[in-house]
């Protein structure tokens, strides 16, 4: 299991389009990906869950990856939340 604390820097937060981009990238990876935000636990491979989490710029998150592809998954997430470009 790998985990890391990240700060969401995405300018407009994680709305539908960034959520779709992230899920498309994470889907082929063989591992579970969870994001903890405030008191919520989010399955990061779900567009709907990501949207409903209402992640905004500046939110502090914990990401947890578990499974064979956990390392590339974590790298992907860290890169995603660092990007200010709406996940593009």
């Amino acid at each position, binding site marked *: 299991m790998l985990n890391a604390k990240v700060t969401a820097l995405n300018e407009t937060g994680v709305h539908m389009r960034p959520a779709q981009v992230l899920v498309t990238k994470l889907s082929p990876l063989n591992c579970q990906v969870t994001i903890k935000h405030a008191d919520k636990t989010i399955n990061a491979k779900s567009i709907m869950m990501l949207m*409903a989490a209402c992640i905004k710029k500046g939110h502090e998150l914990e990401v947890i990856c578990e499974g064979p592809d956990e390392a590339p998954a974590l790298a992907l997430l860290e890169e995603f939340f660092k990007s200010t470009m709406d996940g593009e």
Partner: protein
Amino acid sequence: MLFKGVAASPGVGLGRVVIYKEPDLNYRNQPHSGQDNEKARLKQAIEKFKIEISKLVEEAEAKAGPQQAAILTGQITMLTDPFMISQMEELIEKGLIAEAAMDEVTQSFQEMFENVEDEKMRQRATDIGDLRKRLLRILLGVEQLDLTAIEPDSIVVAIDLPASVITALPLDRVQALVTEIGGYTSHGSIMARALGVPAVTSLTGLMDSVKQDGLFMIADGSAGEVIIDPDEQTLARYRQRQHEWQNDQASLKVFIDRQTVDADGVKRTLEANIGGMAEAKIAQAAGADGVGLFRTEFLFLNRNSLPGEEEQFRVYSEVASLFPNREVIIRTLDVGGDKPVPALGLPKEENPFLGYRAIRYCLDQPEVFSIQLRAILRAGATHGNIKIMLPLVTSLEEVIAAKKILDQCAGSLASDGRPYDASIKLGVMIETPAAVQIVDLLATEADFFSIGTNDLAQYTLAADRGNPKVGALCSPFHPAVLRSIQTIIKAGQKASVPVGLCGEVGSNPQMIPILMAFGLDKISVSPSSLAMVRRELSTWRLVDARELTEQVMSQTSANAVKQCINAAFERKSLNLNLA
């Protein structure tokens, strides 16, 4: 066969029945066709969904613009969520049919979105609801009824007609709307009146007699009657009546979109009562001098979460933009235990009209009230023409308390650096006997008054106008009601507080000369009555109105008043015909 119901929108319609049915999405009796098969059905339905939506996206881009199209594209994106699909498949593996699995999963997501704090994200719940219905329809193979293709001279018959369905109808081919469920003030009826389509509602059991399209029907929206398969004689009578009605409507056409002046040539202020954008547009087209009553309840009805500040701000600003340099009076939330507002969770009460409602609720729930006040204050800054009106006031303290919350809202907007109307006017609706008695006190805090005659008559005469046994007692011609109206107007004049009137009384032609003689500053009526009231006002000279009113005020009963006015109207029409 004759059916009696409620006259929801005046006029006579003659035509063939077209039945509108909400698609039946009940899947309880669907057989289970095996796990693999159910999964395959789900997959096929999702593919078909994407094709249907893609078509709609093209249409929407052409007709409604990119924003509408983006909402639809979003529904496809949601359905590509691998987690959501896998949840549905898991439920199928547990033995559910595709319909049930899809329904359960989408409903749980819909609830999740209804409860998020972010206003914009919360609106996704509606999208998921739409998505759910469409997918269910596809899975069940239910065709969507296309009302845009109905024949000319159709009468649309339904259990209930949502306002969204009514607005989408090709009105030039609709003779009348007929529904089992509804009342004079239900949303569908208001919409029918606004659009000028005859409508009859509250016809319990009608659908048992109307089982197929094509039956010939007469719908009399003025009398509240429906006749199925009429004989020749009846038909001839109603053709005549329809003819007269259409002639009258045609003669009213010249009174659309022109200045309102009385027979002395004095300009009179005639405003509109609206419940949303659709009616606002009709009012604007009919030349309303502004909005005397904007009911905000419709923003709150039929939904599971409250409209947020942004949504309200948008609606209020849009309406305000239609009436530049004319006032738009927004009535704050006027709900109680008798109106279904699931989002507010109001309990059923023994006496909802004497209960926890309107300003009482708002002062008790300042968080809900503040969201609305902030939205109004902000919208007020966009065109500077918005005013606030408080419903069901019975004491001065209520006005003071509401003003305090309004000040707090203004303060918080100022510290947020958001533009708002710092000099917004706040008025009081006079619709309780208590308010009439203390109207001089209320004048010290109110910037204007508006007389709500429906409730004022009901509370003054202690008679429920919706109760057929006592409804007739609730007459606006009762001396108690007339004296109350006169008292309010006099008090307003004395304190230099303008007085308007926004109840149904305003669109009763027989009341026009009385209100004029009382010195009412402005009348606000439903958009469909604007031309008629304008025509009536144009026929009265102040001196004649005063003479009649003097006689009226010396009568001792509602009946006597009515007779006195009837006689005057008969004399007047005789004179007009002679001239």
